[in-house]
């Protein structure tokens, strides 16, 4: 066995083909996304990819994307979480209640302080309920399907209790910023430059480290190509959104979340153990992995992300409503699966789930712009999900 091929060193074309084949699933969904965008552009005379719609599209997908990101890890470990929609909804309603009702009795001025407190409470509620679920699932060994289904019903009731059947306003300026705020154009550019610099730094230091171990390096042009590709994406995105109102704050929050979660999945023991548990639970157990602790952590994390999603939801809508979070779990699960997460566990990426979420949101808004009624939107989403997964299964079988 030669260590040389642990890092590649063959011809240009074969390298590119290899990368393509290894990541074909990720590329497939990105291509699908581009096709959908192109189709909708054509059918709406270009309105679909106009700056305003582009900006709104990304803003809109953030809420369920927080949920989808957490859902990836849940499904990877072989579990499911049906409560995420209603839990996020409950958080949004709690936040609204504090903002509209409770703080006014304690702190008459509606300032940043009260909003900050509301946000913290929202996060705490999400994490707390996630904690309870996590304990029941991981340590009391009640199946996740049942526990989260039960929580979903409980949260539904809780939403009705807190709202007392009414809609609660949550449109204080400090709260609005979270989901409806934008960064000024130059700040957006600073971020873009910063990210590009980080990407190049990462590439260079990665190569140096490999060299220090005596591993053979991938050809420079390949690494450069990858780094430039992502840099172009970042710069392109900032350019597009700056044409409207600037970099959306909720998207910034989501980006930070995605980076953090991807790091967790790939570079920490927690992530490795999660994928091993999903891949072969018995083998993981016999390899010394603490399965209960890992599954516990996964569900606590999911709860926290529901808290984030709920806060953003309250800010986005500006109200706490009785229907808050309805069906979000389906979008979260659908996004994860479209993005390549396998229902059998052990496989799945956060990035893929984000693309999946973009696809589902694009379908929704695209059909909306074309003035097609909501009923068809649901149908199209369902058909796309099934077709996409079929395509994936088919490709896998014939590889």
């Amino acid at each position, binding site marked *: *066995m030669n260590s040389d*091929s642990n890092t590649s060193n063959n011809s240009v074309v074969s390298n590119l083909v290899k990368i393509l084949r290894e990541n074909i699933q990720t590329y497939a969904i990105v291509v699908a996304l581009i096709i959908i965008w192109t189709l909708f552009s054509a059918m709406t005379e270009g309105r679909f990819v106009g700056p305003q719609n582009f900006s709104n599209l990304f803003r809109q997908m953030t809420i369920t994307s927080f949920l989808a990101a957490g859902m990836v890890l849940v499904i990877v470990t072989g579990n499911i979480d049906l409560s995420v929609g209603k839990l996020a909804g409950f958080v949004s309603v709690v936040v609204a209640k504090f903002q509209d009702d409770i703080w006014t009795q304690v702190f008459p001025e509606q300032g940043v302080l009260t909003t900050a407190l509301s946000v913290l409470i929202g996060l705490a509620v999400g994490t707390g309920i996630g904690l309870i679920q996590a304990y029941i699932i991981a340590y009391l060994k009640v199946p996740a399907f049942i526990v989260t289904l039960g929580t979903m019903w409980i949260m539904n009731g809780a939403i009705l209790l807190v709202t007392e059947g009414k809609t609660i306003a949550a449109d204080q300026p400090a709260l609005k910023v979270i989901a409806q705020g934008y960064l000024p154009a130059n700040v957006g550019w600073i971020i873009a430059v910063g990210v590009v610099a980080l990407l190049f730094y990462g590439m260079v230091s990665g190569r140096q480290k490999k060299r220090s*171990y005596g591993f053979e390096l991938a050809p420079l042009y390949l690494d450069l190509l990858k780094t430039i590709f992502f840099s172009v994406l970042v710069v392109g995105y900032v350019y597009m959104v700056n044409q409207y109102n600037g970099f959306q704050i909720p998207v910034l929050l989501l980006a930070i979340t995605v980076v953090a979660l991807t790091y967790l999945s790939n*570079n920490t023991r927690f992530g*490795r153990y999660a*994928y*091993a548990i999903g891949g072969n639970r*018995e083998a993981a157990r016999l390899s*010394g992995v603490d399965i209960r602790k890992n599954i516990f952590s996964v569900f606590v994390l999911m709860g926290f992300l529901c808290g984030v999603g709920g806060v953003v939801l309250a800010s986005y809508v500006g109200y706490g409503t009785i229907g808050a979070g309805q069906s979000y779990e389906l979008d979260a699960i659908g996004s994860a699966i479209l993005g390549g997460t396998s229902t059998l566990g052990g496989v799945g990426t956060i990035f893929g789930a984000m693309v999946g979420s973009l696809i589902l949101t694009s379908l929704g808004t695209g059909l909306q712009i074309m003035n097609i009624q909501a009923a068809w939107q649901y149908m199209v989403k369902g058909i796309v999900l099934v077709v996409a997964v079929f395509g994936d299964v088919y490709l896998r079988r014939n590889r």
Partner: protein
Amino acid sequence: MTDNIKVENDIILDVKNVTKNFPGVVALDDVTVQIRRGEIHGFCGENGAGKSTLMKIFSGVYPYGEYEGKILYEGEELHLENGAIRKATEVGIATVYQELTLVPTMTVGENVYMGREPVEKGGINWDKLYADTQKLLTRYSLDIQAHDLISRLGVGKMQMTEIAKALSEDAKVLILDEPTSALTDAEIEQLMDILRRLKGHGVTCIYITHKLEEFFKIADSITVLRDGKVVTSQPTENLNVEKLVNYMVGREMSERFPKSKREPGSVLLEVKNLHAADPNESSREIVKGASFNLRKGEILGIAGLMGSGRTELVMTIFGEYGKITEGTVTLNGKELHIKNANDAMHEGISLVPEDRKTHGLVLMQSILQNISLPNLDQFASWMRIDDLAELNASLQYAKSLEIKTPNLFVPCDSLSGGNQQKVVISKWLMSKPQVLIMDDPTRGIDVGAKYEIYKLMNNLAQQGIAIVMISSELEEVLGMSDRVMVMCEGKSAGTLDIAEATEEKIMALATGIANGNGRSAG
């Protein structure tokens, strides 16, 4: 049916110049072989030699068009397409796989007629189903009942069910792939009887096994494959085990077991009168009084019949099975209280499990990820795993164990059995154990890879690691151990020094004859 049924000289399967390629690998290279009707035809060869590939062509897994060459079945070209696997069974080619394909929650009858249940007025005709099953079982003298629940049957009887299933479809050719790897000696004898009876009924059997001695009990002729080519195909009477091994590896294998001079050191691990209960059913004892000592740098073989509790014993010591109710486990004088695999690892005990695919590896993950899984703490600071350090360390183990792979990112399910086992061993060596427990380490591995693992074990013992080796192959136990502990019905029946150990003595202890009423003599 008389014993001297003449094996007719008519060829039921005539394989002519069959070649099958996979990307980068020639699995079958111009294979020509003839299988006579009514004979028991053995196939042997190292892993990767092409046996399974050829069987998969016969059974339709690789349909017509996915290979070159011609195969004549009963004189006509075998043309399996469009549901080839189904077609193969319809024309009478049936396979009994190593991994049994039965539904444990159903009965023998339900499994035998799965998918072909007799139907009457839109519903299943259960009476006919069970009657037909019973007729079949009686006809071939299979010692199971049609109403038996699969989950209550031992592996041997499960296998009989699989055979019955094949026969119910009027199999003319029965392919048995490694049928005896999970059977006790008694069950193996039963299987041999069944095959002889089938031969009497005119059924042709293709028999694949790594246990070469079995060919000489039952096969009429043997074909040896190596690197996809037919090395030889002869009547059994012209062959013996040494010749077979020669043909298989293409070189003189004068000794199956590498020699090693070593002097075991002081006692490292002491297990005294260990009793353990089933974790799911605390009233049931699974270890009923086991004791042994293990010294530094020695290989202790643990022999015993299937079901004697060897795996349960070591899994209990490893902290991942039974609950200890009595007795002690002491390492370096310190009494251990191991609650799970992680504890065991930290105390310096590692376990290479019996079933590498379900318990030893996460097959969908890469070699690298598997090797490092129990050892990630070595490469992690705070939250971050240093993936280059991980790769570096894993490479060293993969190199020293000579794992055959282009790189460590290959998923484990694409490796051969021998290489998979090496990955499992690597992963446990990386945790630098003092005691390495290996449960049936060479099961399902070809002769060449077995030798490499034996060499490795000797090396490790020489470095001072204490090895416990559970094995069901008496030759392996006698060839590798310094001492042999024999278990019988959950207890230690006795320990023998290698100088005085013989197959007969071990069997006597294992069957409880030596101890009369099986009282522990550890």
